[in-house]
């Protein structure tokens, strides 16, 4: 059954090698077409041909995209690509094939997690497929998908590993920094906010979303000043943007003091953003905030 509009469905499908992707995914594709959904195939040529032939004449309604180009120029390009396939007033099914993708494993993992974080409000069904005996593809699919397609049913995946709170994702995966600024103390935050507001506008965020994004960066900077303790060294803000998504990293020098057990210093930040986390190292702490439009 097609989910309600406006909600992302991100599922995995493990198929037998002997059947191939086409046989395993056809029922889902048929149901999508019957419901009036748009369908995009991100599969190899042979699979695309098989699916189209099986659905004739409706097979001509399918859009076929080149899987080798999906992660150009960088992994975040795929997120942008998914956004472009959203059709106003309709749902879009995107069928992906692990074996057809030309992508670094770390980048692939990043994108699988990022889909759930930044595209959750889009009317997309992203169905990722992999052969059950593919190694390491099958394990990767199980790790990244909360839901699995099992015949006509969609079931919870007990092997799903949620995106970790302290992510090792390289911030550079979000693209080049559009803003990099140092600040010493709270009095510097006023000027910083003006610059952040400009970045937010350029990223396409507007209204309440933009206000919340600026406030989130401000609060992260306040937190960094507190984390720094007596150190007089500067803190740093770096912001990267891609397609109405703003990734901010605020770095505070020094070793952080653990928060009391009942205290969640990120609670308000999480309310103002899509997600927030703190990543610690020996000589610095990094507060990460993700805001989306």
């Amino acid at each position, binding site marked *: 059954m097609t989910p309600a509009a406006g909600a992302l469905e991100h599922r995995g499908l493990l198929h037998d090698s002997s059947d191939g992707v086409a046989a395993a995914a056809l029922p889902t594709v048929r149901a999508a077409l019957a419901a009036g959904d748009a369908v995009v195939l991100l599969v190899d040529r042979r699979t695309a041909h098989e699916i189209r032939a099986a659905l004739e004449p409706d097979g001509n309604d399918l859009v076929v995209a080149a899987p080798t180009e999906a992660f150009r120029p960088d992994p975040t390009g795929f997120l942008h690509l998914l956004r472009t396939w959203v059709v106003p007033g309709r749902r879009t099914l995107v069928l992906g094939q692990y074996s057809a993708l030309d992508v670094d494993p770390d980048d692939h993992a990043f994108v699988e997690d990022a889909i759930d974080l930044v595209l959750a409000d889009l009317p997309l069904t992203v169905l990722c497929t992999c052969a059950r005996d593919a190694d390491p593809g099958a394990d990767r699919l199980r790790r990244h998908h909360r839901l699995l397609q099992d015949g006509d049913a969609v079931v919870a995946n007990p092997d799903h590993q949620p995106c970790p709170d302290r992510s090792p994702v390289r911030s550079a995966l979000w693209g080049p920094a559009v803003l990099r600024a140092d600040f010493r103390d*709270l*009095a510097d*935050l*006023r000027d910083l*906010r003006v610059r952040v507001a400009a970045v937010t506008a350029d990223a396409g965020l507007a209204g*309440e979303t933009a*206000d*919340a994004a*600026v*406030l989130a960066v*401000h*609060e992260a900077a*306040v937190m960094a000043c507190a984390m720094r303790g007596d150190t007089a060294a500067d803190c740093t803000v770096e912001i990267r943007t891609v397609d109405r998504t703003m990734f901010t990293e605020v770095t505070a020098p020094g070793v952080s003091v653990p928060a009391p057990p009942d205290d*969640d210093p990120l*609670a*308000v930040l999480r*309310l*103002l953003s899509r997600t927030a986390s703190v990543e610690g190292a020996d000589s610095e702490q990094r507060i990460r905030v993700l805001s989306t439009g």
Partner: protein
Amino acid sequence: MSHTLLVAATDHAQHAGAAAWVDHELAAGAKVYYKGWAAVSPETHWLTGHEGSRRARAAVGSGQLEFLDFPTVIELCGGTTEGLWRLQADEVERGLDEGWGRIAMAQESPHRPMSDGDDGDEAAELAAQESGYDRLAERRPLRVLCQLTLDEENPAAVRATTTAHHRDIVDVGWSARVEAGRWCPAGVLDVAVAGRFAAALRGALRDPGPAISPELHVDLTEVGFLDVAAARAFRDVAVERRPPGAALRIVLHGTGPVTRRLLGALETFEGPLTTTAEPAPLVVAGTAP
């Protein structure tokens, strides 16, 4: 009536604001009495020396602008609040007798050595001194500029001075005034100014206005940015013990969606301000109490 507190971080910033105010009053034809620390001749004072405006220099010569240094003020008023009020009243009457249609008084940041631990009595005395200006202004065409230079005052003095001037403050990045029965902050309310903002809010709460009202109505329409520290200031001040006659609760108007989200988050994470049996001390207008 205008009784403004001008807050600046440094002497240099303070001079710029005060000079502009004095020049404006001189241009409007006011007799200006200026009290400060410089125990030097008007010719070398920063306001009228080579850095000052031509108008201010001319005003010294014509008698439109008069200086008095603080040590002399203390000596003349006998170091008492009542003596200070008499000195100010005499200045106003003398200016009017000289034919000036309006009087302006400005005083520099007083370097008030308030104790940080317990500022109850000292704060009350400061408030009484400031209210002397207000009593005078009710009967005479008087405008007052008090200056607060943050570099020169201790935290207790900053708090008490801000509390006493809640009706008209021009601070760094934010301001507040009373309009149409509401207390109206404007500008940026963030962690850098949250302490002074809280002090001003405290003053407004204790002085909700001439109308007898159990509520202080705060209009946030002109506040462009409000962060967690400022939101927390509303909550902290709302639950403080207050003297008799103070407003019982704060009603916020003109709140944006992010501010409402912030206040709701603090309510969730830090708990409600009251038990369900008591009326809420902080309310957002248009939402359920």
